[in-house]
Every structure is written in structure tokens, then in C-alpha cells.
């Protein structure tokens, strides 16, 4: 099940692996994505730190890691097809897979319904 952060990232955990991407709402706000600056595998990030940067036609946006962990894999398809972030933000347009260290960090993230309400309240 996906969990969402207030900064509009999602994370989906399977065992020790967390897949991270940005929400559909976030890609709509960003506009057409032209480049994703992905981290090197092995890089360690703490929850809330910058995980990668997405460049759209409008601006550069930092993506914050919704959980702490070590980068296992990045979505190589985004090198040739950054538009996957727009077309399929919550599936094929995933960004990074992390090895998570502390599952309790997921508890303050929102589920899909809570996140939808959060976006509505943000206007």
C-alpha cells in the first residue's frame, strides 16, 4: 500500500525495499518533466533529505526522501524517458528504490485517502 508525504512523494514498501516516486498531484503541479537528476546507488539518505531533483519546463524541484535508507536502484528508464514521471507518476515513473532501516518512519505518512484530502485542503 502506498503512503504519501506532505511534500508530495509516495513510498511503497515490500519487505526491506521501499519504492519512491512523486504523486500525480505533484507531477500536475510541475508540468512537463525534462530531466531527472537521480542519485548514485549506495547513497544514504535520511528521511526529509533531498533524494533527487526533477527538472520540468517550469522549474527545478527537489524530491525529499519519505523514509531513511540506502539507494539500491534508480529508474534508468527516466534517462531516456523523463516523461514517464508525467505519464505514470505512481507506477512506471517511480524514481528510486531504497533499502529501509526503520519501518516506524512510515507511521506519520498519509494513506491515499488522507493524502487526497490533504491536497484538497492545500487548494
Amino acid at each position, binding site marked *: 500500500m502506498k503512503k504519501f508525504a506532505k511534500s508530495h512523494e509516495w513510498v511503497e514498501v515490500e519487505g526491506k525495499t521501499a519504492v519512491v516516486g512523486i504523486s500525480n498531484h505533484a507531477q500536475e503541479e510541475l*508540468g*512537463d518533466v*525534462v*530531466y531527472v*537528476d537521480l542519485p548514485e546507488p549506495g547513497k544514504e539518505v535520511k528521511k526529509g533529505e533531498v533524494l533527487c*531533483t526533477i*527538472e520540468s*519546463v*517550469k*522549474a*527545478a524541484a527537489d524530491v525529499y526522501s519519505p523514509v531513511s535508507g540506502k539507494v539500491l536502484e534508480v529508474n534508468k528508464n527516466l534517462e531516456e524517458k523523463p*516523461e514517464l514521471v*508525467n505519464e505514470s507518476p505512481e507506477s512506471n515513473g517511480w524514481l528510486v528504490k531504497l533499502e529501509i532501516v526503520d519501518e516506524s518512519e512510515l507511521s506519520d505518512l498519509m494513506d491515499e485517502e488522507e493524502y487526497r484530502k490533504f491536497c484538497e485542503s492545500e487548494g
Partner: protein
Amino acid sequence: MGKELKNSPLHNEHTRLKAKFTEFAGWYLPLEFEGTLKEHKAVREVAGVFDVSHMGEIIIEGPDAVKYADFLVTNDVTHLKPGQACYTPMCNENGGILDDLIVYKITTEKIMMVVNAANTDKDYKWITSHASDFDVEIRDVSNDYALIAFQGPKSEELLQSLSSVRLSTIPYYSFTYGRISGVPCMISRTGYTGEDGFEFYVDPEAAVILWRRLHDIVKTSGGALCGLGARDLLRLEAGYLLYGNDMDESTTPLEAGLSWTVKFEKGTFIGKEALLEKKKKGLEKRLRGIVVEDKGIPRPGDSIVVSNEEVGTITSGGFSPMLGKGIALAYLKIEYAKEGTDVGVVTKRKELKARVTKPSFYRGSVRSR
């Protein structure tokens, strides 16, 4: 709260089509309809329709209209024939650029200046306050016109089916009057995209009819309605400057790469002495193009460096779909402004390898002057 934002006469159309909006120069305008990249591609390959009704229009009329317009701007207005137009900066006494605009010679006694939305009030005040020695009447007619641009390599072909005006007979930077889809317009072969195209000055009441008709023809031909996002990207690729970003009152046309619009050999004009002086003394900075070789996008405000020394600043930047690279306009210290110079662009996160180029990255179907 600031001043209330102005809406275009086509605002309800844009809302109905669920455009994404943005604030620009005091106006609430469409940023994109279907996505900036798709709209950009449509204009490069077929045609795009833009609502640019926010632009300001100022009329100078009277026996001295041409003489006065020529005194206000750096380019030569006296040599234009009725039905011709020119692009020109308008400078203050120091040679600083007050605005960049298009001067249309409607008759030998009537000039229309089309100015940037953000500068309309400032320009109107400037123009009225320098007119005392000239027999002219000046009117801000911005509210009398909607302005729709139709741009792209197929623009002439697609429009011809809507008009009995022989569009092929209108040269670049010329204009005529006629109907497009029954709507009376001033039809101008001008644009801001690097492609061939036309701009239509129409009665705001009639603008919706024309807009819908143009929407119909782009829908069936692979074209698109376009927002400001595509407009900004297209003009950047074409190397066209944006007032407020790439020039302002602290820059002269000489530094901005607009020397071709400064006609020292014509009669006197505001800023002439200062510009001559500047030309004699030599420039300290110059606007150049920057092409990024690394992956990454330059943005306004990013610094340009050469071996850790800051040598310039980016004023416009973005991703060029035609080059598949980051491109930018930047002011560079003159000793680093040579084409081919290797430079670095310091973005928020890293330094990108880049090269100094001509400030024109892509030339499409646009006619030559």
C-alpha cells in the same frame, strides 16, 4: 493584497478548456492547455494559437506622428511605408531600455506602438510627457484590442482557407486589414516563436469567434492552443529577448545584442548621445547564448563561472526540445563573451559544463527581414 489581476477577453474560453493559469505582468493568463512540450512541438511542426491580448497598444496620431515616433525609438521609423512595421527598443536619456516594442506605420500620420503588458502604463506616461514639441495626439487603446497570434510553418496554408486576403503577399514585418473567418482584423506577419506566422488585432467582442475558429483548424491539423509556457520556450530557442528578464533600464540595446535596431545615422532620438558615448568607450558586458553540455537545466539567476571567477549571470534559461539540451541567455563580461568560450553554469545543485554561443539557438520557418 495587490492590484486585481486583469483577464483577457478570451478568459471564459480558457476556463472552459480547463487551461492551467499563471500570473504574468498583472494579468491572469493561460500557462498551458495540453502541456508545454506538446504545444511547443505543435508550433515547430504545424501551428499554434496564442492569446496575447495582454500586450499594450498605444496610438500616436497627427502631422508629427512619424517624426515623434522616430524621436522616441532607436530604429528608423521614417523609412517605413504605410503597412510596414519594425521591432525597436525605446530608451531613456541614458540609453537604458524602457521597453522593446513593434512600431506599425498605419498611415503617414498614424503610428501604433505595441508594447509589453507590464510596461504599458509606464510607456504611455513616457510618451505623453515628451511630446510637447510635436503636433500629435496620444491614446492608450490597449482595451480596444484583443491580440491572437497564429504561429508555425503551416500557418499561412491553414489560415488561407479562412480568408480572402492573399496571405502570401504579406511580407515579414508588414500588415494589412482584412477578414479572417469573417472577423475584421489587422493582420500582421510578425511573431515571437522563430516560426512563420501572423498576429491578429481584433475587436475584443469578436475575439471569441476568431479564437474558436482557429482552435477548430489546429484541432484538425495537428496544431494546438498554446499558453505562456510554450511561448516562453519558443522565444528562448529563437533567441528573442524578454523584457524584464533579458533587458531593462540598466541595459542598453548595444549590450543586449540589439545594435542592429539602433540607427545612429538617422535624426536625433532619446538616448542617442549616451549610446554613442557607450559605443565609443566600449562595452563591459554583452548578452550571449549559453548551451549546456552536461545534463541539467540553467535557470534565471544562475551564475556563469570561468575557473571559479564569476563572469556573468543567466537572465533566461530552460530546456530546448530542439537541441535536447539546456539553453540560456546570459550577460557575460566582455572578455568572456567570445563564441566558443568554455564556461560553467552554477545551478542550485551543481556546476554544469557549458559553451558560449550566438544568442539564437534554433531558427524555424520565420521569414527574413
